[in-house]
């Protein structure tokens, strides 16, 4: 059973990281320049890791699919980043941030990792301010904070509604400084297709050059994946169009275990779906729930305009059910409740699949100018998409796939089950358990990149024998290259009748229906079968036009979708074997009388890490038991 060693250091929770930093072996400054590191992805985790390791003296090769590292999807995060600075003097502390994160994740994450995250969060704010990130300030010149779902303190730092953008541009500028210094070699418009493992260690990658179509191999002493999540398995999500799981999935197929694949976050406040040609969903920051009130008409099928429905005929259901947290309940709770209302026929808008988020009271209380100051850009974005002004009429919102808590399994060092392969940010499974709190993704990405991996990578190099005589001439590279070639040829030669896009849409519908906001055994079993047969359909009938030379956007999509078709099945399988409800994973069979998630701590206080055993073979489910020595497992209550 114990293939999984979390390598959590001993000692008191509060002292573990400090002590471990002292215990880890160091590489002296002159020797750091002898080590090469590959970093795949340039979002918050990848960019911060690349710049920081380069600053330390390592030689970094950095890869991204976009034309510039500044465009990674971290840029779209709106609301903010958490830290336990306690500037508002409202009782925050590292312990409280740790506790909220563990509880918000429904007790399915590792105590030691989460505590470290809460500890370094304060350093992140300092780091970003020093980089010139223009965080919001009060008139006195000090940093402003706001509150966010799942917490009763104000600990979220923000830069208008563009926090992710500003943090990413900070990390990107540090990275570009190291590019200029010659310590980072930047490879843009490259997509990873294969991980190269030599002597049991991750040593390199194969990438496809998106412009030329050429396959290229790169070699290093360690590989870091910061490739983001797999939310686009659902076709419609708030992820960017190119966000994909292929890097992580190919690593899984080389032996990196994939943990808690079923933990996906359905974000409660997104603009509802409008039609079949829709390509993606747009998130409206959760910060809106600070001032917006969520409601539906009390009457089923009420077609009146929202402003014509009198107060007495509205149900502010979050405030009614959860009086102490109200509209600020965690994301999973808010999403599920929206679904309950819609399923009961009280949904609004032309499709009936939406609920209202109303700012009328906030505007009455604080004035339109104040509300514009807080959310102006979000309101404009909403109006551009829907042609309706939230200043005059309530927003219509509905949950959408937003984030994946699951990912490649990593130990305390952020190393996967393949030695030398480290995984950061959303791509790993580590810190958010079964549900991520708002403003914590930015925190985790930057914690991993600025303050964790720069330490643990040195310990890896100092503690392991790494054969530095190996180059890309090693036969493993030829094999990996050939694998990718075969795959591409297979896709191009199928010459079927269905476009990649149309199959991806079908997969998305299957996933939403069978592995969506609520799941049950029968539907999951059916879903697995349907995904398998859709995969066959793809293999036999996909139409990928063009060739493997030059730009071929259809081929790019085909590679990604062929991986989504596999990961989708693993997500369903993971959901099927987790016989409990926790966080974002809600099984109809396991709920309380009040329809809240019912955990099974006796049997499921563990991480499920899946091990690849071959194509079309059932993967093996390994377990890492989660030990809670510092917090008591309670039923989450936001009432």
């Amino acid at each position, binding site marked *: 059973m114990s293939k999984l060693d979390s390598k959590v250091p001993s000692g008191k929770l509060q002292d573990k990281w400090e002590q471990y930093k002292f215990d880890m072996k160091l590489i002296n400054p002159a020797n750091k320049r002898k080590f090469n590191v590959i970093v795949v992805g340039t979002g918050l985790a990848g960019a*911060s890791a690349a710049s*920081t390791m380069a600053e330390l003296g390592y030689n970094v090769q950095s890869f991204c699919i976009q*034309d*510039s590292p*500044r465009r990674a999807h971290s*840029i*779209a995060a709106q609301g903010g980043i958490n830290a336990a600075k306690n*500037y508002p003097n409202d009782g925050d502390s590292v312990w409280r941030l740790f506790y909220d994160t563990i509880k918000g994740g429904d007790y399915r994450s590792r105590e030691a990792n989460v505590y470290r995250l809460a500890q370094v969060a304060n*350093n992140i*704010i300092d*780091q970003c*301010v*020093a*980089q*010139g990130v*223009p*965080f*919001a*300030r*009060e*008139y*006195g*010149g*000090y*940093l402003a904070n706001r509150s966010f779902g799942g917490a009763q303190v104000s600990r979220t*730092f923000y*830069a*208008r509604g*563009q926090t992710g*953008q*500003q943090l990413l*541009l900070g990390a990107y*500028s*540090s990275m*570009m*400084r190291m*590019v200029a210094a010659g310590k980072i070699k*930047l490879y*843009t418009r490259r997509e990873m297709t294969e991980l190269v493992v030599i002597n049991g260690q991750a040593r390199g990658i194969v990438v496809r050059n998106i412009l030329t179509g050429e396959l290229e191999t790169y070699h290093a002493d360690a590989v870091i994946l910061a490739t983001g999540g797999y939310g686009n398995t659902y076709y419609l999500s708030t992820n*960017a*169009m190119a966000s994909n799981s292929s890097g992580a999935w190919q690593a899984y197929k080389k032996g990196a275990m994939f943990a808690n694949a079923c933990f996906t976050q359905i974000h409660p406040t997104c603009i509802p779906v*409008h*039609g079949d*040609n*829709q*390509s993606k969903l*747009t998130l409206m920051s959760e910060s809106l729930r600070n001032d917006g009130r969520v409601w539906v008409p009390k009457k089923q099928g009420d077609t009146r305009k929202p402003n014509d429905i009198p107060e007495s005929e509205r149900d502010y259901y979050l405030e009614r059910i959860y009086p102490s947290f109200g509209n600020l309940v965690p994301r999973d709770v808010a999403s599920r409740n929206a679904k309950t209302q819609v399923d009961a026929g009280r949904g609004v808008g*032309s499709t009936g699949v939406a609920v209202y988020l109303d700012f009328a009271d906030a505007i009455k209380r604080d004035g339109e100018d104040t509300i514009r100051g807080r959310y102006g850009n979000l309101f404009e*974005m909403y109006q*551009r*998409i829907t*042609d309706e002004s939230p200043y005059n009429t309530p927003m219509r919102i509905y949950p959408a796939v937003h984030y994946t808590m699951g990912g490649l399994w990593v130990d305390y060092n952020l190393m996967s089950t393949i030695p030398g392969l480290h995984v950061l940010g959303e791509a790993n499974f580590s810190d958010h358990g079964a549900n991520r709190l708002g403003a914590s993704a930015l925190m985790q990405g930057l914690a991993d990149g*600025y303050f964790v991996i720069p330490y643990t990578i040195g310990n890896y190099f100092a503690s392991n024998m790494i054969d530095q005589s190996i180059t890309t001439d090693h036969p493993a590279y030829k094999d990996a290259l050939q694998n990718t070639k075969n795959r591409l040829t297979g896709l191009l030669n199928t010459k079927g009748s269905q*476009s990649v*896009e149309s199959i991806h849409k079908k997969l998305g519908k299957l996933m939403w229906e069978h592995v969506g906001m609520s799941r049950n055994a029968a539907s999951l079993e059916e879903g697995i079968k349907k995904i398998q047969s859709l995969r066959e359909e793809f293999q036999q009938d996909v*139409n990928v*036009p063009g060739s493997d030379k030059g*730009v071929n*956007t*259809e081929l790019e999509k085909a590679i990604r979708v062929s991986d989504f078709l596999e990961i989708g099945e693993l997500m369903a399988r993971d959901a099927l074997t987790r016989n409990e409800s926790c966080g974002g994973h809600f099984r109809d069979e396991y709920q309380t009388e009040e329809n809240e998630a019912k955990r099974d701590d006796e049997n499921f206080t563990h991480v499920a890490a899946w091990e690849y055993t071959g194509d079309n073979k059932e993967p093996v489910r390994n377990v890492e038991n989660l030990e809670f020595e510092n917090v008591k497992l309670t039923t989450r209550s936001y009432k």
Partner: protein
Amino acid sequence: MSTATMTLKLKIWRQADNTSKGSMKEYDLPGVSPDMSFLEMLDLLNENLVNSGNDPVAFDHDCREGICGMCSLMINGEAHGPQKLTTTCQLHMRSFKDGDTVVIEPFRAKAFPVHKDLMVDRSAFDEIIAAGGFISMNAGNAPDGNAIPIGKETADLAMDAAACIGCGACVASCENASAMLFTSAKLSQLALLPQGKAEAAERAQKMVKKMDELGFGNCTNAAECEASCPKGIELSNIARMNREFFKSSLSK
């Protein structure tokens, strides 16, 4: 929400790769819903092209939320199309009507060569940032975030400048293909903040020099950049950059 669909006549720049000659090609596209975004309209065209065995139109796009800066396009001669303060991905088809002709071209500039069709190379912007668009500090050095109070007005001005998404609309709409709005936005953000003042002079010199080296033109105050900027970056940033550059030249 409207259910009636439109038929559009599209004239699109097709170019096989960066060495081939390109030309405008015409396509009729029925079934366009006013609720679609502009890029969803192009998705629909591409789906038709793929299903009829033709090469889809290559264009850059990613977040489709107006923030990553990856989407571009000259639409009827305007960078990001007719709607002010809006990126192409956030432009919706309700801005057009049935029977309209829509001309779609790449962002054109000497420093932005075409890769394929509507995809261009904007890596010159990365080079400008690498020349000095940063504060030289290594992770781990930072004092407490509240150690240096920054007045709200200054912080807001810095944020206004920092909002640039690096899409290149400013360059594409400028008759001189100048990158001064882009460069000045980053320069202003860092020059306004106390953290950035230590190396402000060097930064101004290096970024301006790099911008000129890369083949971007000069500013002749036509203000087309400001008019086309989807994030409302103001011309005053260019004035600030010129002051910073002048100051730094004196102190050299």
